[in-house]
Structure formats: structure tokens, C-alpha cells
């Protein structure tokens, strides 16, 4: 069955979410992945937004985390203080899965969403952290969406906006961050995970029709590909639920 790479990426992220996970999501594909998980495999997962909405009904897909659609039929409508406290407080925060994106990522899963070039006189300016650094600092597990390009998978970030494993094993703890960090990087070509011991990125999966070497060609640094398997494409049912129940108007897809 036909599917787009965006659909593949969304479904792979959705499969990572379980019942009783509290899912932090941003705008676009990350929101769609969280919605898909509720429709497909984790009906009792809870979606929340940094703006303060928790357990939103989402009858229509929001186009921003500030979209009024996140405010309808929630468990509570609070503010930014509430949502970030839910993550910084480990009692609830240990149940949160964060979904993030960025302009650059390094082999330890650190993210740059601020600038390309020198911070004081950047070549390219991006949006900045928003809540991204907060989520990456607080939560035990995060999923990262990226496009696979050499300039995005870099040896050294121009600016470290959101912490992954910083410079390797024990670095988060040394910096004073709660343990945790990125669990998975989902791109338009495959899936990267992080080694338990070295905290370094490795290739865990590639999409049908794409080879590990093609993926390495799109990265400034190399990663271990020995454990890579072909990813299972979205099923007809997954696609049906994603397309018809989550984004029937194709606002994101």
C-alpha cells in the first residue's frame, strides 16, 4: 500500500507511545504522531501542550500549540507554569514522552534550533528553544524528528539549544540534569537510537528501498549501522486511522 515518508515517520513515532504515557508535543508532525498513537495503539496515552492544555479532545488538528483547538474538552486549562512543572516534577515527569524537532543534531542527540553561524551575528536565525530545551532537560524519554541532510547531522552544533547526552556517558548527571535524554531520532530515511553505554547514535532501522550507506551519505559523522534492520511500513489500518481520523483535511500530511 502506498504511503508517504511523512506518514511513515508519523507512524513510527506513534508506535513508540504506550498507554499511560503523558505525551508532550509541539506543532505539526509531532502533534500528529501523538494523535495517531491515541487512535491506533495507545488510546489511554495523555496528550498535553506546553501552553497548559492537558488531555485535549482534539476534534480538529491544531496548527500551533497555542491553537484554540487544544483548549476544547481538556482535563484542565492552565498555563505554561503548569505544563513545565508537570515535566520538571519527576512524580509526573517520569511518565512524559517528549516529541521534538531541530535544525541540527549531533551524535549525542544534542539539538540546535537557534542559529547557524555565530550566535552574536548568525548566518541563519531559527525560532529558538521555545519549550524544547525545557522538555529535553526534564523528561526521561524523547523522540526527535529530523530531515536527513549532511548540514543537519553535524559533528559540532553551531549552538546547543536542547540537551541530549551532552558529551557522553554521565554528562547529563554531571551537568545537574535529570537522567534521561533522547530515545530515538526519526528521519525521512530511517531511525537512529542511542547506545546504552556510549550514548552515541547508531542506525537502528532504515525504510524499505533505502540502504544504510545512503543514510550515512546524508550525515557529517558516521554511526554504527551493524544493528540496522528494515523498518516495518505502516499497515493499511494505521494509514487509514492516520489519514481519516487524525488529519482528514491533510493540514499536516
Amino acid at each position, binding site marked *: 500500500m502506498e504511503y508517504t515518508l511523512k506518514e511513515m515517520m508519523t507512524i513510527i513515532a506513534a508506535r513508540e507511545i504506550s498507554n499511560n504515557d503523558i505525551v508532550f508535543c509541539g*506543532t505539526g508532525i509531532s502533534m500528529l504522531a501523538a494523535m495517531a498513537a491515541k487512535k491506533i495503539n495507545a488510546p489511554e496515552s495523555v496528550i498535553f501542550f506546553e*501552553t*497548559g*492544555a492537558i488531555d485535549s479532545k482534539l*476534534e*480538529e488538528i*491544531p*496548527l*500551533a*500549540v*497555542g*491553537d*484554540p*483547538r*487544544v*483548549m*476544547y474538552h481538556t482535563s484542565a*486549562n*492552565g*498555563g*505554561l*507554569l503548569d505544563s*513545565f512543572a508537570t515535566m*520538571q516534577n*519527576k512524580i509526573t515527569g517520569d511518565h512524559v514522552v517528549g516529541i521534538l524537532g531541530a535544525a541540527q543534531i549531533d551524535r549525542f542527540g544534542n539539538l540546535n534550533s*537557534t542559529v547557524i553561524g555565530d*550566535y*552574536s*551575528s*548568525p*548566518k*541563519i*536565525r*531559527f*525560532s*529558538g*528553544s*521555545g*519549550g*524544547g*530545551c*525545557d522538555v529535553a*532537560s*526534564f523528561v526521561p524519554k524523547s523522540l526527535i524528528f529530523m530531515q536527513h541532510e549532511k548540514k543537519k547531522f553535524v559533528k559540532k552544533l553551531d*549552538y*546547543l*539549544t*536542547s*540537551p541530549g547526552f551532552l558529551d557522553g556517558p554521565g*554528562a*547529563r*548527571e554531571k*551537568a*545537574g*540534569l*535529570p537522567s534521561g535524554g533522547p530515545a530515538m531520532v526519526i528521519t525521512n530515511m530511517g531511525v537512529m537510537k542511542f547506545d546504552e553505554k556510549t550514548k552515541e547514535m547508531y542506525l537502528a532501522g532504515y525504510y524499505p528501498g533505502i540502504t544504510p550507506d545512503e543514510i550515512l551519505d546524508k550525515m557529517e559523522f558516521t554511526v554504527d549501522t551493524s544493528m540496522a534492520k528494515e523498518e516495518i511500513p505502516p499497515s493499511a489500518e494505521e494509514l487509514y486511522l492516520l489519514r481519516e481520523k487524525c488529519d482528514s*483535511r*491533510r*493540514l*499536516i500530511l
Partner: protein
Amino acid sequence: MNVGQNKVTTLKNAIETFVTPGCHLSIGGFTINRNPMAAVYEIIRQKIKGIHLYAHSNGQGVDELIGAGAISRLEIAYGGNGKFASTCIRFRKAVEQGVIEVEDYTNYQMTLRFLAGSMGIAFLPTKSSLGTDIINKWGFSKEMRKKSSNIPDDKLIEMDNPFSNWCSTSKVVLVPAINPDVTIIHVQKADKRGNCRIEGLTFADVEQAKSAKHLIITCEHLYEKDELKSNSDQNQIPFIHVDAVVHIPHGAYPTACYNCYDYDPQQLKKYGEYAKNDDDYKKYLSKYIFGIKDHQALIDLVGLKRMEMIKADPETGYASNMDRT
């Protein structure tokens, strides 16, 4: 703050009185929601310059203030506007061209800074951003900070947990309080004394409001003195914090106002088009801001049909099934 009993005034007067050149300003709302856009357009119309703006993710309002050249310094967490701008275009241009000084924080940090200001305390702690360039890289230099009495000497301060390892915390980042000279927020309901009721998410509006030396409220619905004192559980801001109350229906347009109207996807897209190059943006400014006398004129210019389109569904609080493609 003002303990007085009647604070109703015109937008023109409120902006003239409280938003002065070089003042430190914060505006409410989040990305495409409940920005005090009427006030933003009035600030632009009055050609007030050199503003020091504090923002978390105040999207559309921030980009328009920057685009019009009102801002010289910006402390910000997120310069995007959701699906309508992964990075706000005029913000991006201004930073890349070096026409504004910018310093980056996180959304939680900016919110905590307003909270600290509202609590009357110098700083608050968090674990967010430990080990990152948010701490390491400053937008404002030590020297400039020392010179400016209204900017703290340090951006952020890392500190060991003085309570040993209490809460399994070894280190924290301290974020300095913000007390803007003026905060402007747009709310659904306010009474003539200034008691406010926000519907839907409050974002960081309450903290921004209570941290400000002066607070301007624009509202969709204006109530008589004391009308909002029944069901006051739903009031987030008591009148003592408020300096001016201005009644402006559609005051958040083209951003959304929950239970009143949705954001206008057509206007926001059109804005994105105009923003792409400077000549077009000049056209935008003259057509939609300088060319018209007030916010009602903007609403009239856009037209009744569009207002009907974005009208909120009483059940959901937004314009259900509106075409947003």
C-alpha cells in the same frame, strides 16, 4: 497598579500614557492566540521606538512590532508562529541583519522570570538548560548589563543546590526576575475597575500582568463595576494590578480569542507573504496599519464575511470546520 475605581480609557490614550520610547514591554498571548494586536498596531501607529521587549512565544505580536521597527532589544524563547511561520520572518530578518539585539531563553525560563517579578523576588531556580548554550551564550554583554540599571548583571547563574542533594538535585540555574514597565494583555472579559476573566488557557498572561509596573487590559466584553464579582473564582487578575481598561471587540485579531473568534488563517498567510521582502512589507504596513485610523477600521477593511468565518462555535470555542488549508 492602581487601586482606583474606573480605569476605562481609549487605546490611543492608554498607549500614549504608558508605552514610552525605550520602555520595557511585555505582551500577552501565545503564537496565534490572544495577542493584544489592537494595542500592537496602535504602538506601531504612534511610531514608538527603542522598545525593550520580553517574550516567551508571543508570536504574531512580536513579529509585527519588530517588523515595524519598534523593538531595539528582545529577550525571547521562541520566535515562531506554529504552522504559519516555523521562524517568524521579520524576526529572522531583523536578527540576521543585526538591527535588534536578541538574547535567548526557554519558555519555562521566561515564564519563571515573569513569575519571579510577580512574586516580588529577585530570581527563581530551575533545572532547565543546564549544560547548554542557553547558559553559556549571552546576547547582552557584561559591560552593557553593568551600564543598564534595568537589566540584571548576569543572564543566568548556575548554582550548586545549597540543600545538599535534596530532591536529588545537585545543580540549578537561577533566572532573574522581570518587572516590565508595562504589560499589555487582551482578555475576554473585564469590568470597569479592571477585574479580568480569561477564558481558555491563560498562557503566561497572569504572571506577565502581575509583574508589570503598569498594566493595560484590552477586552472583548466590558462589564459594569462589580459585575464580574459573581463567579469570581474565574477571575485571574484582581483590579488592583490594572492601570487602564480598553474595550476593543476583535482586539486580538488576526490571532484567536477563545470563545469569541478563531485566528484568521487567510490574514496570517497573507502576512507571511508580505513579510517575505521589505518592499511588500512596506505595502503591508501602509495598508493594514498606517493607512487606517484604528482597529475597528482594520476589522471593517477585512470585512464582515471574514469575521463570520472566524466566529467561534459556542460549543468548541473556535470556528469548527473552518477552512484552514
